């Protein structure tokens, strides 16, 4: 009942429990002030306290502060990542930047061929912040005394004077291939100063090109397309170890059993050591590298001479050339059964035009490399593969190696025909064979200037270091193999007083009097600097002008076209498909020089390390700590030996052995490597940098100088060697415990042969079921995240591992840390050797890697990360509730809540939880404790020197010591997508594919699928419902959210 005002009620006593609010209104319509007396006093009190504090205790900050208004425009989007398209080496990439700093190298999804960066491209972001980079130009004085800083002006003066004076006696040594504009700069430079340009690359191999030219003449060498090949026969093939041009993605496309069924790809590998490619093979035949060509020729003989297939049969002299390589002969010499050759020949004949025969760079860099290449080309030609399973583009350049050129340069230097030597990217004092004696030759030059980013092995014997910017700081262009060009675009201003090497080259040329485009670019850049106070970068103007003139001629708005390219990062110039000429009979002459010989003695193979490759990124903690996918060794080199030989010598992993070859002898830690040919030894290249920096120097041994040059190329395999036991042991940092998996006893990895898969798509997924669970099920409303990993697609390359490390701020723990079993990686790729079926089953001895398993192993890869179990065993045992289930199915780890009992890690059947044993990401300056525990100093060296912490992803907490961590399914990306959905008014409804964890984004073979399993239309629920899907360790009843899809081997 409403109260009537007239109704005279007696005054109510004041109820003090009721809040009395004096409402004040302001004429301007601002908020009414709701303040009672007490509140007023409270605020007044707080305000005066604050004033008192501010006037007495606090000071105006004395650090220099950066005004916000002067930042680049896009940086104003605080808290949001910006992406820049660029090209790293020849890998197109998007660089994710946050608040102006690059934090992650991601794939460029728009690129037609290469959508994911490899390990080294991903790790480039760490190199950018490498504290061992030189911060400005240095006067090195060929290491007479410590390097002294020198101004750019002084250096420019010296360099331009030298360029002018020594015209005609100038050489530029570079490993950068670059794109058309870069090449043009070099051409112009060479023209202006009559300079000689020497392209070198330590792992390039002239034999491939020579063989190709002799087979088909001066035509571009086509690239194989594995997505079109049903059968691949590899001779020491390495296309999955070091894929070019999207080969890994193509290969995986062929390995999808659901899509391909009967036309599933099949890979047969002949090899001496176990490579990643061989580990993925359906059939693997061990063979010494020196017999590779014989094996290829045996197939050629069988196909051409016995079965009279292909046009080559009519070539003159073919009969005489191939006759010694009849299958029986080769079988007798190599020890491979004749019927194996015949069977493979059968398969190849059946798959004419649908197969690829391929060799690998290490295999062809042997004395018989040309014969091998020729045999491979002959086989492909015979089988009619060339137009069908190969991409033939007119503008694919013919690769040419380096050592021959380096040899020429050394000769020129020694002859005194070079006075000024400029070195860009190349590091011959690290990676050239010692027989060239390049160091001594280099001393003959009057002036040596290195454009390295640090005082590396070569730069320290130079006069000056014209410190080059990192590729992420500089302009340029690049070429990816099949007619695609990319821009190299900086995503940050140079961190230090450095310039891109192209910038410097252009400027110096212009200042030294070069005319034409060099001078124009220099002038344009200077004008630009005057106008906008930007960085002097003539390379930008050069590339832009060159591209506009060449590539955008038809465009109306060239400026717009340039911008589009910058945005997209690449341009496809197509390139006409040129028909391949007929195989030249003269090429058979090469083969005639190749004699089938008995394999005698040991053969050493020096293969590029999977992560380090040529060692040029040798100071990168992520790469150094990356466990080799096959040996699983990190932080050092090893000598891989066949298990039988290893056992005979009575060795333990890490025992030093002395291997003598090419007149030098090396002590290397021995490693019992499954699948090695008994007479083959293998050691990785890329280690042993002496002047890489504080992280990578003196890790392992550098075998490059020990290589011999033959026919102008270093011999990297088939090197005859002797081996003996040496004293001592060098512990190997092996990131894996047991190697062997007996799937009958432990069905952890679903595997099936193609025939059994076709008979029953679920074969290989059988498991012991768990019992009833006492735990209530978690309720999820709309979303439950899940993942599937297709083991048929996964090649074990490890791109996901580095992507995860970069995305989630995972620290590097160093060799000691790995030895102690404390690697922090949230994602790992378990490598198992599949125990063959045995009558009566294996007993426990199977885990000791018996010879029956590891001599002829079938390798399995299993990416392992937190399984986000439904009944997570970690969640129930944490007394602090630091790990719990989210509504959307994530097993969350709350760092703030974690006190570190480690019970969760103990109770995790997958052992994916990682504990912060130390403060990895904090400098610990206490001297006493640094002496007691030297590791803490090393951790700071590896993770937090200089600007290193700038690499950290601000979306992810940097963990403190004493807390547990693990894969979060990239929860920061989930939250980001969710926020975006909310902003767009979708109320948390996420589209499929909107959340892509770092590992999935980096996977070249698209093996990882992530998404909402409750959305029946999502990709992940489709793959999750596949009969191939298996959730491992069902017996424990933990119910993982990750399903592994059967690896289907194409075998009977």
């Amino acid at each position: 009942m409403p109260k009537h005002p007239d109704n005279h009620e007696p005054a109510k006593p004041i109820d003090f429990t009721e809040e009395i609010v004096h409402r004040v209104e302001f004429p301007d319509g601002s908020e009414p002030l709701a303040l009672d007396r007490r509140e007023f006093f409270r605020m007044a009190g707080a305000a005066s306290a604050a004033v008192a504090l501010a006037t007495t205790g606090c000071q105006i900050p004395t650090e220099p502060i950066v005004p916000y208004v002067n930042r680049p425009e896009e940086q104003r989007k605080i808290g949001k990542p910006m992406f820049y398209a660029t090209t790293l080496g020849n890998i197109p990439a998007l660089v994710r930047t946050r608040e102006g700093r690059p934090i992650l190298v991601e794939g460029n999804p728009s690129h037609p061929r290469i959508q994911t960066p490899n390990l080294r491209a991903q790790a480039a972001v760490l190199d950018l912040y490498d504290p061992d980079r030189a911060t400005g130009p240095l006067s090195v004085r060929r290491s007479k005394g410590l390097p002294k800083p020198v101004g750019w002006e002084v250096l420019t003066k010296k360099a331009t004077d030298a360029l002018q004076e020594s015209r005609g006696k100038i050489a530029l040594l570079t490993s950068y291939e670059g794109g058309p504009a870069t090449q043009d700069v070099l051409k112009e430079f060479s023209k202006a100063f009559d300079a000689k340009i020497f392209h070198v690359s330590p792992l390039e191999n002239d034999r491939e090109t020579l063989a190709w030219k002799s087979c088909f003449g001066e035509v571009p060498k086509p690239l194989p397309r594995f997505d079109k090949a049903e059968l691949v026969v590899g001779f020491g093939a390495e296309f999955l170890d070091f894929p070019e041009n999207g080969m890994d993605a193509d290969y995986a496309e062929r390995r999808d059993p659901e899509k391909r069924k009967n036309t599933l790809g099949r890979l047969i590998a002949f090899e001496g050591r176990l490579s990643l490619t061989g580990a993925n093979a359906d059939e693997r035949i061990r063979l010494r590298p020196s017999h590779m060509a014989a094996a290829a020729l045996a197939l050629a003989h069988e196909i051409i001479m016995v079965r009279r297939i292909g046009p080559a049969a009519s070539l003159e002299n073919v009969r005489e050339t191939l006759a010694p390589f009849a299958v029986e002969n080769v079988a007798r010499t190599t020890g491979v059964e004749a019927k194996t050759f015949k069977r493979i020949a059968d398969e190849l004949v059946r798959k004419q035009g649908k197969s690829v025969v391929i060799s690998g760079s290490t295999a062809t860099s042997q004395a018989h490399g040309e014969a091998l290449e020729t045999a491979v080309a002959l086989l492909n030609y015979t089988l009619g593969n060339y137009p069908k399973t190969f991409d033939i583009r007119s503008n694919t350049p013919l690769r040419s190696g380096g050592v021959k050129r380096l040899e020429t340069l050394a000769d020129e230097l020694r002859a005194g025909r070079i006075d000024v030597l400029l070195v860009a990217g190349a590091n011959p004092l690290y990676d050239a064979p010692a027989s060239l004696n390049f160091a001594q030759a280099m001393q003959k030059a009057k002036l040596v200037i290195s454009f390295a980013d640090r005082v590396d092995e070569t730069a320290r014997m130079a006069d000056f270091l014209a410190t080059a910017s990192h590729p992420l700081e500089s302009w340029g262009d690049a070429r990816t193999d099949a007619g695609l060009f990319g821009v190299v675009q900086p995503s940050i201003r140079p961190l230090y007083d450095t310039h891109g090497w192209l910038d410097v080259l252009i400027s110096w040329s212009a200042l030294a009097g070069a005319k034409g485009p060099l001078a124009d670019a220099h002038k344009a850049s200077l004008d630009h600097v005057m106008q906008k106070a930007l960085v002097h970068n003539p390379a930008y103007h050069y590339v832009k002008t060159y591209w506009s003139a060449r590539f955008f001629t038809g465009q109306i708005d060239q400026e717009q076209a340039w911008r589009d390219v910058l945005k997209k990062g690449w341009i496809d110039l197509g390139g006409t498909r040129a028909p391949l000429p007929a195989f030249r009979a003269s090429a058979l002459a090469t083969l005639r020089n190749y004699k089938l010989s008995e394999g005698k003695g040991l053969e050493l193979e020096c293969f590029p390390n999977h992560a380090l490759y040529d060692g040029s990124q040798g100071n990168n903690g992520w790469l150094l700590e990356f466990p080799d996918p096959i040996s699983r060794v990190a932080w050092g080199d090893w000598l891989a030996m066949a298990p039988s030989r290893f056992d005979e010598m009575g060795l333990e992993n890490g025992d030093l052995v002395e291997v003598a070859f090419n007149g030098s002898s090396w002590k290397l830690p021995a490693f019992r490597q499954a699948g090695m040919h008994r007479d083959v030894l293998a050691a990785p290249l890329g280690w042993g940098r002496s002047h890489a920096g504080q992280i990578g120097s003196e890790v392992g041994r550098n075998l490059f100088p020990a290589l011999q040059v033959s026919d102008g190329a270093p011999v990297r395999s088939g090197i005859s060697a002797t081996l003996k036991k040496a004293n001592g042991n060098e512990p190997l940092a092996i990131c894996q415990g047991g190697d062997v998996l007996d799937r009958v006893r432990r069905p952890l990895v679903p595997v099936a042969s193609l025939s059994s898969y076709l008979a029953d798509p679920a074969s290989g997924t059988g498991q012991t079921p768990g019992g009833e669970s006492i735990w209530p099920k978690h309720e999820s409303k709309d979303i439950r995240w899940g993942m599937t990993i297709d083991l048929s697609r996964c090649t074990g390359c490890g791109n996901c591992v580095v992507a995860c490390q970069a995305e989630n701020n995972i620290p590097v723990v160093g060799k000691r840390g790995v030895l102690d079993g404390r690697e922090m990686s949230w994602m790992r790729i378990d490598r198992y050797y599949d125990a063959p079926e045995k009558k009566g089953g294996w007993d426990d001895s199977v885990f000791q890697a018996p010879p029956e398993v590891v001599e002829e192993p079938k390798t399995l890869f299993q990416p392992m990360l937190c399984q986000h179990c439904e009944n997570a065993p970690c969640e129930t045992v944490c007394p602090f509730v630091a790990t719990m289930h989210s509504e959307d199915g994530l097993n969350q780890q709350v760092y703030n809540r974690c006190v570190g009992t480690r019970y969760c890690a103990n109770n995790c059947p997958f052992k994916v939880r990682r504990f912060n044993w130390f403060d990895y990401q904090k400098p610990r300056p206490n001297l006493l404790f640094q002496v007691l525990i030297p590791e803490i100093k090393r951790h700071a060296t590896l993770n937090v020197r200089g600007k290193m912490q700038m690499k950290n992803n601000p979306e992810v907490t940097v963990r403190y010591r004493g807390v547990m961590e693990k894969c979060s399914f990239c929860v920061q990306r989930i939250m980001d997508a969710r926020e975006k959905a909310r902003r767009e008014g979708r109320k948390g409804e996420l589209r499929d594919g909107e959340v892509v964890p770092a590992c999935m984004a980096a996977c070249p073979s698209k093996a990882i699928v992530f998404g909402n399993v409750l959305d029946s239309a999502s990709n992940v629920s489709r793959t999750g419902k596949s009969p191939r899907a298996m959730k491992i360790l069902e017996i424990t009843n933990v119910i993982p959210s990750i399903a592994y899809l059967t690896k289907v081997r194409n075998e009977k």
Partner: protein
Amino acid sequence: MKSETMKSPYETFAGDSDLHGVPIAVEGVGPFGGSELISEPLVTGNKTYADVDRDIAFHVENFPTRRWWICFFIAGSMLGLLLFSLATLFYVGEGVVGINHPVGWGTFIVNFVFWIGIGHAGTLISAVLFLFRQKWRTAINRSAEAMTLFAVACAGIFPIIHLGRPWFAYWLMPIPNGRGPLWINFNSALAWDIFAISTYGTISAVFWYVGLLPDLATIRDRATHPWRRKLYHWLSLGWTGSNRAWKHYEAAYLILAALATPLVFSVHTIVSFDFATSIMPGWHTTIFPPYFVIGAIFSGFAMVLTLMVFMRQVFNLKNYITINHMEAMAKIIMLTGMLVGLAYSTEFFVAWYSGSEYEGFVFRNRAFGPYGWSYFIMFTCNAIIPQFFWIKKIRRNPYTLLVIAILVNVGMWFERYVIIVTSLHRDFLPSSWGMYHMTFFDWSILIGSFGLFFTLFLLFVRFLPSIAMSEVKGVMDPEVARCRPEDDASEEA
């Protein structure tokens, strides 16, 4: 007694050499005139009540002996090592010890379970044996209880120092907090541990202290220095020794004994849940609770025995802690040793019987894998060596007793090492198998915990009566002990 003139059968026992471990047959005193078996006296040396006070209070009232100082110096140095190690550990992080992935628990939890196990004997001796009216317990119960307390103190530090962030250990307490609505996880066995151990520690301390009251009063009454008198007066809570006080005291003691008895079984049961409630093969077994309790009693008795051998030697208490006491303990060790051996065998049987690959593998790996040596030490020391106690000579010789008791403790330390390390180091995924190597700090923390234990024990024997005087008097033959002529004479004088 039939005849006033007949001497007490106890009077002839001067020391260990007179004891045989068998009852004495006294002729003609049986109910039908035959012989009666009387057990040998618990105190030898024809001690009077006054002697008891003198002998036992002596060590509290006099400046410590040289031997004590030597022991104290050694124990103190070991404690110093512990403090140094902990300082390093707290500053640098858990990485200073050898634990890793997959072995997330190493020294800390091994030592924790070891010390908690040691702690069981004290309460068992004082509570369970009290309830079973085992009079021989009186000589050893005080020090056994003290040992329990110190062992629990040693054990108590490990769950804290093993944490990654020990400064937040208090988060385990279910106390109202300002950390939001978060509460501890009652599903976690580690949370149960907190309750179990704190309850056990509290009850043990109260039980021990209540038992100390009459003796503290004795010390007070004997004190000559006013400060000593004041201190012990305060400590003895005004004990008067009146009948009423004794009545209440005995009732309280009985109740506390009844309360403490279930704890003997509950604590190690709950500690075993730390393992049994996990899903790790080798841990996830139902046998763990009884197996742990038996193992705890086994190791606890061995530790008591070790201490007794030293104590009677160093403090000249051979008349109170006689060889008969030690033989009684040896018998219990032998029994529990066999039970532990049975548990080991049962585990193996069940692992085989379950048919589980993972379970079976863990046990085979335990015995024959890379840590087979530790399993061998464990099995030998725990299941085989105590069998020597079947031989009477061995169980009645202080030196053999000492050796075997120490070996049993070594074995029991390795039992925990085996359970924790071998189960974790090779579990489900062969890829994640690893090894655990103890570092300097693992060892120093282990040694340091012994330092802490012995330091506390030495302080205890220095400042408190290490044998329950009042209870010992209760089990002496009043005929012998009441007085001796010379005492009477001196009193009269």
